[in-house]
């Protein structure tokens, strides 16, 4: 039986349908969860999709953070449920304190919509285990105005020491991008961080859009293994097994 995975729909979400479609391709039973829902309808994992929830007013993600569905997502995450935030969804998770750090205005001040390369730091996570190799460049789009990953130096050191950096911006050859490299690291993220996870390892966020690179028709399917990882891990969780290497995060 396909595993049920929820995609939260905030007013202003615009990648919810793409995400539902990618989940369908990956063999899941995707369902949309309206932002006023107070229950998650028995899903085995949740994705917070990209978009401009509540118009990104005040700060990207902050108004969405206080919506009724987020109370349910927070409770789900606290029990070890798998949660992935993509782009605006990552911003919501960061504002909610479910993943570390903050997303600042892009250093160049411009909204950026184009392809980038990222590479996974590790494969022993519920979000990356279906990727072919760590460090291999994956091409997928970004579309954001506030994507510059920020945390103070002490926290960045701790994230790296604990293996909580999931993805970094790299060049086409897989070399880690410098903070000043506006081609490979266009938003200027500190230490080229494109995605992180929480301490328990069950909540992750990234700025690029794997769901928009989930089939060859879209120009790249490099993002699809990230979706498949989540679906497979959710299926394991639903069957009462440990999701892939959740304990991988120390």
């Amino acid at each position: 039986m396909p595993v049920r995975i929820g995609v939260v729909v905030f007013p202003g979400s615009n990648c919810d349908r793409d995400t539902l479609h990618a989940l369908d391709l990956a063999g899941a039973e995707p369902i949309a969860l309206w932002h006023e829902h107070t229950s998650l309808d028995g899903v085995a994992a949740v994705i917070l999709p990209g978009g401009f929830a509540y118009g990104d007013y005040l700060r990207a993600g902050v108004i969405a953070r206080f919506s009724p569905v987020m109370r349910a997502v927070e409770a789900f995450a606290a029990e070890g449920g798998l949660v992935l935030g993509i782009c605006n969804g990552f911003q919501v998770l960061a504002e909610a304190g479910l993943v570390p750090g903050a997303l600042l205005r892009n250093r160049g001040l411009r909204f950026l919509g184009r392809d980038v390369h990222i590479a996974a730091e590790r494969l022993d996570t519920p979000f990356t285990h279906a990727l072919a190799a760590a460090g291999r460049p994956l091409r997928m789009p970004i579309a954001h105005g506030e994507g510059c990953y920020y945390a103070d130096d002490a926290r960045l050191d701790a994230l790296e020491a604990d293996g909580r950096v999931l993805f970094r911006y790299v060049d086409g050859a897989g070399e880690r991008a410098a903070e000043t490299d506006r081609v490979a690291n266009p938003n200027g993220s500190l230490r080229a961080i494109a995605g992180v996870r929480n301490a328990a390892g069950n909540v992750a966020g990234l700025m690029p859009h794997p769901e928009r690179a989930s089939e060859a028709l879209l120009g790249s399917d490099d993002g699809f293994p990230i979706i498949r990882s989540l679906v497979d891990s959710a299926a394991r969780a639903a069957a009462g097994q440990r999701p892939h290497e959740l304990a991988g995060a120390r």
Partner: protein
Amino acid sequence: MSSHRFAVNVTPKPGILDPQGRAVEGSLNHLGIEGVRSVRVGRRVELTVEATDEAAARDVVEKLASELLANPLIEAYAIEAIGAVA
């Protein structure tokens, strides 16, 4: 109950990248203005609170400033009373 008007000034914390501030600073040359530095761009939110007295009203503002208006990781805030409202 009485009405109390406040402003909450939210600014990027020291050391936080502020590309907007830098862009404003960069534009000053074009205006022929010299001697201005450390430009930081933030936001100001004005609001009216109904409460028993000013102290109680300030407590409400403190809570909403710290939980909603500012992200404590990256922003500082200052609360300013801007007078009672009739």
